[in-house]
């Protein structure tokens, strides 16, 4: 079994022959995982579905609020409270707005953080992926959601951004460094991201790696992701050698022989990625990127 980069057999199940489909994204040679930007129509429909779900959740609270508001208004006018009544009503409205806003935002943020997709997105096979490597952080989810206000304002810069940008991101996606991808159900079984699955397991057994500290793992994953997956910051050979030496020294249980530096970095990146996403080490057909 060879370990050198680039000699892995391309998997014909997933590789498509027409590269223009992925013309807006980097495709790593030979790997089955791709980032397909989600078509705008699907994103729009998913959002509409999500809005309907949120409205359904808010239906009863809204009814309660209307009832309470009418009662309060009647009470305020009958008790001749004057300015105090108006201030009370204003406070009531503010509280209601806060509650509804938190339901709306909470829905999106909670589900996108927990599983990377809301129910509307799930219906259309969309998933939110972090471009920093590893798992979506809470900050990313919050930012993504709040900037939707700017995206949907006036001339819809979000729509323009999705059409014009390289990876189909809206302004919220740019800010949070995320991507909304589209997976087909045939791709449910996920192979390794940074390297061939068999090589990964082999290396897992020979090297017995240990995990990094969380802070460093974030930086390392960001580095590896940018280097190997989206290829926006391709490191020099010396840099890879340095990182590989660092990993060898601190995080490998046993010293592997005859494996080149790039493979070491890739392997450890895959290991960290799986740790952050809490994926099991063995292949699970139901796992989606």
């Amino acid at each position, binding site marked *: 079994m060879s370990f050198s980069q*680039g000699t892995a057999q*391309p998997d014909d199940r997933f*590789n498509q022959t027409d*590269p223009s489909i*992925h*013309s807006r994204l*980097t*495709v*790593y*040679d*030979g790997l089955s995982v791709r980032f397909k930007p989600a078509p705008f129509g699907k994103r729009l429909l998913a959002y509409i579905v999500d809005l309907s779900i949120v409205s359904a959740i808010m239906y009863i609270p809204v009814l309660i609020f209307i009832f309470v508001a009418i009662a309060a208004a009647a009470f305020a006018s009958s008790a001749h409270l004057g300015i105090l009544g108006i201030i009370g009503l204003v406070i009531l409205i503010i509280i209601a707005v806060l509650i509804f806003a938190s339901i709306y935002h909470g829905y999106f943020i909670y589900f996108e953080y927990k599983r990377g997709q809301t129910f509307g997105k799930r219906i259309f096979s969309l998933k939110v992926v972090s471009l920093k490597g590893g798992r979506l952080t809470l900050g990313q989810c919050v930012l993504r959601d709040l900037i939707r*206000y*700017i995206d949907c*304002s*006036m*001339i819809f*810069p979000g729509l*323009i*951004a999705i059409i*014009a*940008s*390289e990876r189909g*991101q809206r*302004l919220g996606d*740019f*800010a949070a460094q995320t991507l909304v991808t589209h997976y087909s159900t045939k791709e449910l079984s996920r192979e390794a991201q940074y390297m061939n699955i068999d090589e990964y397991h082999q290396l897992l057994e020979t090297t017995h790696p240990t995990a990094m500290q969380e802070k*460093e793992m974030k*930086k*390392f994953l*960001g*580095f590896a992701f940018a280097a190997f997956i989206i*290829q*926006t*910051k*391709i*490191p*020099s050979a010396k*840099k890879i050698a340095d*990182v590989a030496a*660092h990993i060898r020294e*601190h995080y490998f249980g046993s010293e592997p022989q005859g494996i080149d530096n790039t493979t070491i970095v890739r392997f450890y990146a895959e290991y960290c990625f799986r740790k952050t996403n809490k994926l099991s080490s063995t292949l699970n057909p139901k796992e989606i990127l």
Partner: protein
Amino acid sequence: MTEFDYTEQPADQGTAGSGTSGQTRDGALPPLSPAGEAGVKFVPGGFWVRFVATIIDGLIINFVTLPLGVLFGLVPNVLSAFVDESLGGILIVVSTAINYIVSIAAATLYYGLFYKKKGATPGKMVFGLRVVDSETGNFIGIGRTFLREFIGKILSMLILMIGYIMAGFRGDKKALHDLIFGTQVLQKIKT
């Protein structure tokens, strides 16, 4: 254990590229593997792309300054009804001044920090545009950004926006504020 540094110095400085593209910031992007795309290159950013990018930027800034403007406009005027004339007048003048200063500060920070750190504001990032020094290809600092935005763009607006329009007709797509302050707007395109 000392912290390991994963940030990369630019892998190689890249060749001089075509005309004014200069050096790229995050290392030269080499051609990708056969299954991927052929490569990227930087060309001068066209008029209409910059136009839409500017509109989007304006929208984003308005998002912050407009509510502030309403706040500073509404509140003092309402309050001034409750106090006597002279105090009300001072209140309005002061709040207008504060509003003005805050708006300019917000715009300066927005453009300054984004141009300095990433070479592009979000409106430009959407289209893959970036603003660089026309000789060295580096990103420009806050001082030069401030001058370019507040003085340069005003100059471009004089005489029926001729300074902006000239960007459409020049080969290197430079507007008047680009010429004066030695900047170039590039667009990243796939070859």
